[in-house]
């Protein structure tokens, strides 16, 4: 019995209800609730680091009949990322939304989004995952249309419809699993699932649904409009966290539940799509004329990188080498999460100051907003994968996995992708550091500039130096059939 596990879900949910009841205090409740959720996640992480994976059978019913929450290395890492990013974004949002009439609704939905993310990372039951996915999708959609513009509403509506289609595909996969194995508990399924038509079809359907939500090429088309038209704090969490949630589920399914079902060919297909996403997304980011649109296309590319790992993971034998590669994948996902949220927050600061985010007219940013320009540079370092960022180490490990498995086709993809990332980053920095009057001058460092730079520092320095912690945490697994 370990009631600690419910707190990362219960704290934000309770705060959301309080924020709904006391709209005038919603900002305080929102920031405080996010901070307390952070505390809850830290407590859970400490316990996982000290004593390994933990499980909580809700309602006292054995998992299977009841629902179990589970925390292991992978989920703790995702939890930590989501809670740290959301803490920083919450501080930023307390300034961003301070004068908006949507303030109270923003905070309620914000806390519901955190609830959904935490519930998703902790859930150990397939149907419960469907419910958390829907909660995540709906709250993200509402947050995305808080800006109120026509484009943001249209993008949010497309996002909603596609997300629903994805959830339906996931749900029918769950139905087939229940038909074939008679349980929804993931730990039991990790043992029970064996290669066969049921498992194969269920995995394809569930993965297909999740691919829509994680915006892998060619199912990415909804992402750039939705992410670039949302309010800045919302774009930050959408790009950094919500997309990662679907990716986390794909990893869970492929590596823990269906690890005997996954074939090299299937993994190769996803890897190829990932490769195309890297090239196409980076190219589109280079062409983008608006800062937030560029960031959104860069997310498409970065998601592609993460899928490059799948064929490598499928080719590597279970054991240390695979854990190292998996650790690199997680490290890349974390770095991108921190860097991209920093990027969107910086873009938000510029947009509020300048009234636009057209890249070509950003001259003077470095003089007017030195901290924000520095943030863009730091985040750019992490997006390209230069040392000492976490993504440098991750890409290094990606390359070494390529050498071990002999899948040379990924080499040019990684090389060109990195070059393109460098190109779009330096193009942006070139404009931002050029002299000009595009952005009005300011003398003080605003409270809203601090969170972004902290996030960027985490991405470039903290994750780079503390990367070994990621590799230590990843092998702790709650699922027998998996990488444990």
């Amino acid at each position, binding site marked *: 019995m370990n009631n600690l596990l419910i707190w990362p879900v*219960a704290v934000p949910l309770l705060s959301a*209800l309080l924020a*709904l009841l006391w709209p005038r205090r919603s900002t305080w409740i929102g920031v405080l609730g996010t901070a307390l959720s952070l505390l809850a996640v830290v407590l859970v992480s400490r316990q996982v680091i000290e004593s390994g994976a933990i499980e909580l059978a809700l*309602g*006292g*019913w054995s998992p299977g009949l009841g629902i179990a929450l589970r925390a292991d290395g992978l989920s703790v890492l995702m939890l930590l990322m989501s809670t740290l990013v959301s803490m920083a974004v919450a501080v930023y949002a307390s300034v961003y939304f301070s004068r908006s009439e949507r303030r109270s609704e923003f905070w309620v939905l914000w806390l*519901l989004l955190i609830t959904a993310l935490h519930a998703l990372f902790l859930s150990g039951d397939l149907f*419960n995952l469907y419910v958390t996915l829907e909660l995540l999708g*709906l709250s993200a959609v509402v947050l995305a249309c808080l800006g109120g513009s026509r484009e943001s509403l249209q993008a949010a509506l497309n996002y909603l419809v596609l997300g629903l289609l994805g959830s339906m595909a996931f749900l029918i996969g769950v139905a087939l699993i229940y038909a074939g194995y008679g349980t929804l508990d993931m730990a039991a399924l990790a043992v029970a699932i064996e290669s066969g038509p049921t498992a194969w079809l269920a995995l394809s359907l569930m993965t297909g649904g999740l691919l829509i939500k994680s915006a892998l090429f060619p199912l990415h088309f909804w992402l750039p409009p939705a992410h670039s038209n949302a309010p800045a704090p919302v774009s930050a969490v959408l790009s950094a966290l919500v997309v990662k949630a679907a990716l986390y589920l794909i990893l869970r399914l492929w590596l823990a539940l269906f690890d005997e079902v996954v074939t090299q060919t299937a993994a190769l297909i996803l890897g190829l799509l990932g490769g195309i996403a890297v090239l196409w997304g980076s190219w589109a980011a280079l062409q983008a004329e608006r800062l937030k649109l560029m960031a959104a296309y860069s997310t498409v590319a970065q998601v592609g990188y993460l899928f490059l790992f799948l064929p490598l993971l499928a080719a590597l034998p279970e054991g240390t080498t695979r854990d190292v590669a998996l650790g690199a994948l997680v490290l890349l996902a974390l770095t991108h999460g921190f860097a991209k949220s920093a990027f969107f927050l910086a873009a938000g600061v510029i947009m509020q100051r300048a009234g636009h985010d057209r890249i070509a007219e950003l001259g003077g940013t470095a003089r007017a907003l030195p901290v924000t320009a520095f943030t863009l540079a730091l985040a750019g370092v992490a997006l390209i994968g230069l040392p000492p960022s976490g993504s440098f180490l991750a890409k290094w490990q990606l390359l070494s996995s390529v050498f071990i498995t002999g899948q040379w086709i990924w080499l040019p993809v990684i090389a060109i992708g990195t070059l393109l990332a460098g190109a779009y980053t330096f193009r942006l920095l070139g404009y931002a550091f050029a002299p000009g009057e595009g952005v009005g001058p300011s003398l003080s460092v605003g409270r809203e500039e601090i969170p972004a730079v902290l996030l960027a520092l985490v991405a470039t320095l903290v994750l780079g130096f503390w990367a070994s912690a990621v590799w230590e945490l990843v092998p702790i697994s709650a699922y027998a059939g998996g990488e444990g």
Partner: protein
Amino acid sequence: MNLTLLPDLLLAGMLIGLAWAALSSDDLRRGVVLFIAFGLLLAIVWARLLAPDLALAEAAIGAGLSGALLLVALRDGGGADQHATKPSTLNRWLIDLFVLVMTCLIGWVLWLTIYAEPVERLAQLANAMLDRSGVSNPVTAVLLNYRAYDTLLELVVVLAAVLGVVVVGRERRGYREAGPVFHGLVHWLVPLLIVTAGYLLWVGAHAPGGAFQAGATLAAAGIVLRLAGYDAAGLPDGRLLRWLLVAGTGVFLLFGLAMSFSGGGFLQYPEAWSGSLILIIEVAATASIAAALVLAYRGGRTDGWPLMDEKAENREVSS
């Protein structure tokens, strides 16, 4: 060919036919009406498959409230999307091929798992543990005890969606006051619906029924009121409305947390109390679901929703 299968085959065929007709109709109004008929037929299928709880819920939610929402969307002017681009013939063929292949694959797997080599699922376990769950309707036991966490999160989903409805749109314009005949019906129907909701809620512990069916019935009362010209649709204003929306999730969550403080696990009801605790949670959930559904139908920010500050109101007037 076994003759006793004939009704089942007929029902299945009608389901597919109605779905096809609803989805391929170019006239939206026709599509929506066919969809409502589809929902009603589905309710009959649930009854046939010994799922009376679902039959009630489908008739109330799936056909009734969804239908009301879709119809009112048509009234908003939903029929006007005429910039539809037809997909190219090649795409059409590819999609049809994909659909055909997937249908066959899913059908094959279902044949394997249901017919060829059926497996033992949770039926026995769920029915065996019924004595310890505090209720005797197995579906209620699953919803509010074994898998209560799912239901808690589901109430949160409803909350998120209704907040979205409130954030996005303004209230729809109301209806003219009902004439004498309709008014007479409302006069009888609304109290009857409220009594029925109470009955469904109470009976849910041991027979088909429960919070969702009761909530949907209560919401139907609200919708009837609104159609008769009562614009508030029976919902309270301001702060009380917020409390009403929060009630279901809040009571559920607080009970769960209280249990984890008093030595058990989260949502682990003490066995002697579980029946009463479940009933209290269900009452709160019914209120929240009904309020959320009526609000979703009525739409938007109303006079009743306390705005953050009066600036918002000024802005809309001035712009």
